[in-house]
């Protein structure tokens, strides 16, 4: 087990290295940040000065090493469009996005998972039919449209729940539903189909032959086997949620990273773009690592294989 974790860890670090190299080169290939940073009428001396200040005249390897070194101590540079430290921006925005994504994820787990299990256990009956309608709705409504509909129904029509911004815990409900319904539906459907499979397996039949209660049969014997694919999807969904908040954040004016990414790209604020992409990639890579390790704990065949 120790070897397994160590191996996966090395793999993750290596992946992150390759990704950072890629981002570094890509940002330098797609345009000259100096032209964005300086006004059109700037002189050649000003260009040279800026180049020196940003270290853009040094050889690339040196720039790369400096960039990575600074990031390792939490220095992500300064946003050119906002004139504040990127780390400061991240500190402000990231918790909000995490909170929103977390709420969406909580919704997916708390609703999608049990509904999927119930749906499989009572297939063809009322619970199953309503759960499937709920899932189809979630997967067929585009989230910008869903967001606008929710906005029109609750704050505008019924006068309940805040229409936007971040104020008190109720303000997260609508953006979380907008963000999370799709994931809830995906998780529900996958849980349902894997549970159907495990519920018809011989080991579930044997569990019933033993005289175990239906609850033990479903949640222990069937669900623990269904949990493997469900867990994989759930983790992918989580990263999808964290990195996919742009629409929900925009519709409900939620002060997270989604809007930050958008404005950084529009303003060609390459320091911010660079930092956001590397942070998001790191989250993705180490998130996957966590899932792999959890997976191995759940599935003895991987652990010993």
């Amino acid at each position: 087990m120790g070897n397994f974790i160590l191996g996966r860890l090395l793999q993750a670090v290596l992946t992150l290295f390759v990704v950072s190299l890629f981002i570094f080169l890509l940002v330098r290939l797609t345009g000259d940040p100096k032209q964005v940073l300086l006004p059109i009428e700037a002189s050649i001396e000003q260009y040279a000065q800026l180049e020196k200040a940003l270290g853009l005249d040094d050889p690339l390897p040196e720039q790369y090493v400096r960039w990575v070194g600074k990031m390792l101590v939490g220095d992500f540079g300064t946003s050119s469009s906002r004139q504040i430290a990127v780390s400061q921006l991240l500190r402000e925005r990231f918790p909000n996005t995490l909170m929103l994504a977390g709420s969406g994820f909580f919704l997916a787990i708390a609703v999608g998972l049990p509904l999927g299990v119930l749906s499989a256990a009572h297939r063809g009956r009322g619970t199953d039919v309503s759960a499937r309608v709920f899932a189809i709705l979630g997967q067929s409504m585009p989230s910008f449209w869903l967001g606008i509909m929710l906005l029109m129904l609750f704050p505008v029509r019924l006068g309940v729940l805040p229409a936007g911004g971040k104020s008190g815990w109720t303000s997260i409900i609508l953006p979380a539903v907008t963000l999370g319904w799709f994931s809830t539906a995906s998780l529900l459907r996958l849980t349902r189909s894997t549970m159907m499979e495990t519920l018809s397996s011989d080991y579930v039949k044997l569990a019933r032959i033993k005289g175990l209660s239906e609850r033990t049969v479903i949640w222990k014997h069937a669900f623990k086997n269904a949990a493997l694919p469900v867990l994989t999807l759930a983790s992918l969904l989580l990263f999808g949620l964290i990195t996919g908040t742009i629409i929900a954040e925009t519709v409900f004016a939620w002060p997270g990273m989604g809007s930050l990414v958008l404005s950084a790209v529009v303003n060609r604020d390459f320091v911010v773009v660079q930092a956001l992409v590397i942070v998001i990639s790191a989250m993705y890579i180490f998130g996957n690592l966590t899932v792999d390790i959890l997976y191995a704990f759940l599935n003895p065949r991987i652990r010993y294989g």
Partner: protein
Amino acid sequence: MLLEVKNLRVQFDTLMGLSSPVDGISFSLEKGETLGIVGESGCGKSMSASAILRLVPPPGRIVDGEVLLDGTDLLKASAANMRQVRGHYMSMVLQDPVASLNPVFPIGNQVAEAVTVSQRLRRRSLKEKVIELLQRVRIPSAENRIYEYPHQMSGGMRQRVAGAISFASNDLKVLIADEPTTALDVTVQAQYLDLLKELQADVGFGLIFISHDIGAVAELCDKVSVMYAGKIVETGPTRTIINHPRHPYTKALLDCLPRLNEVKRLEPIGGEPPNPFAFPPGCRFAPRCPRATELCHTQYPDFVQIDENHDAACWYANES
């Protein structure tokens, strides 16, 4: 009477239409007795076994009949009572016992679970009981193997674990073994049958032994029921069925099954068993029967009593 099954019928309502893979079967079993059920693949043996334990997979349903255990109809029992019955009195070894162990739990855990349903034991004595059960099915160094996962064991060993699970209860009355040996090689098969016999002598449960292997049936069973297309077509003492079969299907089946200690040319039965969605109106074997008449094709024959314990459902059962 320990177990009496009367007119048991299982129905599947599917997109392809209605089918009755088990279509009104009846038999009985005394304490300590062994009943063999034989028949071609797909004739409904496993489904009958599932129906007796009320574990027919959806969308299948038991639509008719009675399953009397010590005179109580299990089909009328509540779900909770039925779980008690499964945990204490009736058990089953599935046709593919190797697939019947849950891959994500250690085997000791899975045996212990079966024990706790019928007995309240402290941790220590539970572990001892699990080891004892595993030793009983001759699993070597059982105390170390309880921590192993199914995929770490050989097929034969997993088979034995499934066996240990099936008689974990102290008050087992009926054990159904669904072709318990087909997945094993010959030497292991013989060992397993010995084990089964020994346990039955010990515990005294009634055994329903489903098999293709007429040799194993002859060795183990007191009586045999022959199934064809969802129905039992002949029942009788094992010797009689093997030596003096009356139903043409039984004869055909005996001719094509390999027998122990006998070198004989196997003659496969011509044709195929009928589609369960469209059973023929008369005798279901008529389309393949060499001596079928007009009557056979139009009317289903009732059981004809040949001897005290020997019945055959054939219009001409008394003629040969």
